[in-house]
């Protein structure tokens, strides 16, 4: 070869190898890059007494289909696809699959773009729950009132395919994959999505709660509610009880992205902050009434916490020892408060004729007036009398238990929810106002002070103590409603070691035996934090000093009146005098036995149990989706045929060559 040939070759080589060399260090690395695991939150299979709801793989196998990006819920689908949808179109698309069988047949699975992804359009309103959530539990007949106008009701619908909400990063990956398919005009090789959301109940064939509980292929929804008392209950106490309640769980179709920032967590934050303020008042043992705080869980799934609480009270359960249902004089519920317009709150009341209810309403007015300042006027209006009754709330089971129960619910809304994203993955911290929560918290603190202490007004010295500081609210919001810092924040990590940083408020399933004292692993982070916070704030102090002692009390405190607060992996706890307990939260239609959960028959004494769907969640092994490029099966078959053909042709050629050479050898 002459020199010019070499030069040309060299130039060509230097040009072509600019970017062409892929850099994988090993074959496992290549294989790992072929499959992209996406992360996000799945919609899982839940069951009720009458059937299944939620989403899952239709049978035991993984589901695989090419990715098709739709811009709107009404776009056409030509062949079986994994549909990629914007979040704002999801509910409409899911309803379409329920109404049009042709579309349902073409949907192998649904991938939902993150609502905070780049370029995502924000739906103006979205709600997975019904227009009248949990209507069957209302203590009145008129259930046609629309509390939740955006309600689509998809949370109670059954879908025969997996649905997966993608994280921001994964949204980008799947969008690229869909774009690749579009560029190739949906010819193979195509990018496919493989869904692995196989549910145990599907594998075993149990399709109702009763069947799956007996087959142990599911677990009932539930958790642990927390109640505490200020001051700690002494056995001789016979005071009337002012019960203030709220809930700590929300719902949406995506189990892992259920923050419920406004509904109901803003109420919880307001209540915790008001307790923090009330704890500043000295000598609560001199108050006229006993103040008891209860934070329920499972309220979004059939008022599990409040119903079980009442059940425990009436059957004298050990978790509610010291409480007497007959001594509950009045109830104040703190509902969603963060979106109150111009500090205008609404009081929904039950049994307006009773003195106890009137007392609460008047206390609210006194508290609101005391909060008025030059800059802001705080108003508490009575809810409109065109409302059919109290809104969906934890108060409903209390009313069913005692028709003459006096109760008031403090909320941000009058006849229609202010929360445009009620019970959806979009009810996040961005839409709540911490100063509004602070106002609500001060309102609640002062109202409770008036009710419990018997004082009729707020003196200026008390007013200073009962003004909630906004920084505590901000801390609580950043801990309970954001991932950064999330549950690793100082406030929370001072009390518990959280199991995960990103908070989530789906009630989850009830693990373990409800009759036994709960172990840490079976209680979720939020409940454990609330328990510790309340125990810490309601602890008895003598002359302003703690009566506790720092010790390793993870196994319990020696004194039965004491509880162990703040025992974490990093530091020891403190034994304090406080009445703070966990109460199991699960359906009153279920009974735990040694052989598992049993469904009890309907009974005349448990009216709400008869309308309870008894939600359970199926066991599942993994909840995963991965994206990769796939050839058509025809191509794979052709490769096999080609390989076999080459082998066969080689054999034949070699044999014929052998005989040819043998002949030649003979002749030669």
């Amino acid at each position, binding site marked *: 070869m002459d020199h010019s040939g070499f030069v040309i*070759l*060299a130039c060509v*080589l*230097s040009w*072509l*190898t*600019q*970017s*062409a*060399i*892929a*850099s994988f*260090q090993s*074959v496992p690395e*290549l*294989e790992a890059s*072929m*499959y992209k695991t996406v992360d996000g939150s799945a919609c899982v299979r839940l069951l009720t007494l009458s059937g299944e709801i939620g989403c899952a793989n239709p049978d035991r196998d993984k589901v*695989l289909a090419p990715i098709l990006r739709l811009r709107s819920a009404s776009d056409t689908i030509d062949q079986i696809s994994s549909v990629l949808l914007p979040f704002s179109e999801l509910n409409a698309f899911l309803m379409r699959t329920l109404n049009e069988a042709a579309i349902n047949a073409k949907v192998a699975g649904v991938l939902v773009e993150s609502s905070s992804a780049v370029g995502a359009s924000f739906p103006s309103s979205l709600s997975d729950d019904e227009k009248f959530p949990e209507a069957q539990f209302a203590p009145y007949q008129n259930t046609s009132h629309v509390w939740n106008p955006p309600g689509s009701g998809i949370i109670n619908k059954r879908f025969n395919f997996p649905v997966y909400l993608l994280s921001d990063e994964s949204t980008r990956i799947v969008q690229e994959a869909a774009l690749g398919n579009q560029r190739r005009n949906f010819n193979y*090789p195509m990018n496919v999505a*493989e869904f692995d959301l196989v549910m145990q109940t599907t594998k075993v064939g149990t399709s109702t709660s009763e069947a799956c509980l007996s087959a142990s292929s599911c677990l009932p929804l539930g958790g642990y509610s927390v109640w505490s008392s200020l001051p700690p209950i002494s056995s001789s106490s016979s005071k009337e009880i002012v019960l203030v309640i709220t809930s700590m769980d929300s719902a949406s179709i995506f189990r892992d992205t259920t923050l419920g920032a406004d509904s109901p967590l803003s109420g919880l934050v307001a209540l915790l902050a008001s307790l923090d303020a009330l704890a500043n008042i000295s000598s609560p043992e001199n108050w006229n009434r006993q103040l008891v705080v209860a934070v329920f869980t499972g309220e979004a799934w059939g008022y599990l916490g409040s119903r079980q609480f009442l059940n425990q009270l009436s059957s004298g359960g050990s978790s509610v020892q010291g409480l007497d249902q007959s001594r509950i004089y009045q109830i104040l519920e703190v509902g969603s408060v963060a979106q109150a317009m111009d500090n205008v709150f609404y009081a929904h009341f039950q049994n307006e004729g009773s003195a106890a209810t009137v007392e609460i309403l008047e206390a609210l007015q006194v508290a609101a007036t005391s909060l008025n300042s030059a800059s802001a006027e705080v108003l508490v209006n009575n809810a409109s009398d065109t409302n059919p009754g109290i809104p969906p709330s934890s108060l409903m089971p209390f009313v069913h238990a005692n028709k003459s129960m006096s109760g008031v619910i403090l909320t941000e809304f009058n006849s229609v929810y202010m929360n445009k994203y009620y019970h959806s993955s979009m009810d996040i911290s961005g839409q709540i106002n911490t100063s509004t929560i602070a106002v609500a918290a001060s309102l609640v603190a002062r109202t409770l002070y008036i009710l419990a202490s018997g004082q009729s007004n707020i003196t200026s010295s008390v007013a200073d103590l009962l003004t909630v500081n906004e920084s505590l609210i901000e801390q609580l919001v950043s801990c309970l409603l954001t991932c950064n810092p999330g549950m690793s924040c100082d406030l929370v990590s001072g009390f518990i070691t959280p199991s995960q940083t990103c908070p989530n408020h789906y009630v989850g399933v009830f693990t373990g035996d409800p009759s036994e004292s709960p172990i840490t692993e079976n209680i979720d982070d939020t409940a454990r934090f609330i328990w510790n916070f309340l125990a810490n704030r309601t602890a008895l102090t003598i002359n302003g000093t703690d009566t506790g002692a720092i010790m390793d009390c993870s196994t319990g405190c020696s004194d039965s009146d004491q509880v162990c607060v703040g025992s974490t992996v990093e530091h020891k706890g403190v034994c304090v005098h406080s009445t703070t307990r966990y109460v199991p939260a699960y359906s009153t239609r279920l009974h735990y036995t040694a052989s598992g959960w049993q469904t009890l028959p309907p009974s005349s004494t448990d009216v709400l149990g008869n309308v309870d769907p008894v939600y359970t969640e199926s066991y599942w092994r993994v909840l995963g989706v991965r994206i*990769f*490029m*796939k*050839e058509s*099966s025809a*191509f*794979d*078959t*052709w*490769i*096999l*045929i*080609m*390989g*076999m053909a*080459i*082998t066969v042709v*080689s*054999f034949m050629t*070699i*044999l014929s*060559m*052998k005989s040819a*050479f043998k002949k*030649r*050898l003979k002749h*030669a």
Partner: protein
Amino acid sequence: MALAAGIGYTLLALGPAFALFVSVIAAKPLLVLFVLTSALIWLVSLIILSAFWRAFLPIGSSWLLVLLLVTCVSFQELIRPVFWFSYKKLEGLLNALAQRMSKPELKYYETMQIALAGGLGHGIAHAVFFCLSLLTPSFGKATFYVDSCKQMPLFLVAAMLSLSFLIIHTFSMIVAFNGYDDGKRSLVVFAPAMHFAAAFLSLVNLFQGGCMVGVPLVLVCAVGVICYCGKIVWAKVGDQDTAISMSNRANILS
């Protein structure tokens, strides 16, 4: 079903090797030994080369890539005469043993079978080193396309290149043995020349879409090697065995 594809690619790369092994090699234990030994030797040569070049990974510049190809091919081609020389020593021993046992010495076609075994070992070593583990992911559901080759999956390219090189190595060893035995320069140069040619032609695959040209070109090299080898051996078989006694057909190898 991606299992089908995985099996297909493996057959594509190793089917002819398998066919050769079963039809020609397997019947004679000594040939099997030769294949195994040869494969081992060539694998060791590749491992030595990779151990040296590992220090220079990743190959960023094109010059380094060319240098890598040149050094690797040269190293292997330098081993080839050593390989032949060691074989010659062994052949001497085998022939001496044959004489003592009053059996005939190695004939030409038997020598060519040994050359085939040696070449097959080389080809299998290449396939194992460059292709076999790369095909493992092809048994799964996913496929993989390199940016510069949108037309063919990586596994298909790898299998076809491996098939080509297997053929090239197997049959150029026969040509080389003929060349060394007869001292013919054109035959001696043939093996290194085809090895270099195929190696540099495979660089065409690095172009955008180059695999549609590069892979067929390397296959053409392979076909060229078979044809040339066939021509050489066909001619020699015609000449040589007239001199050898036709009565003595007892094969010391069987």
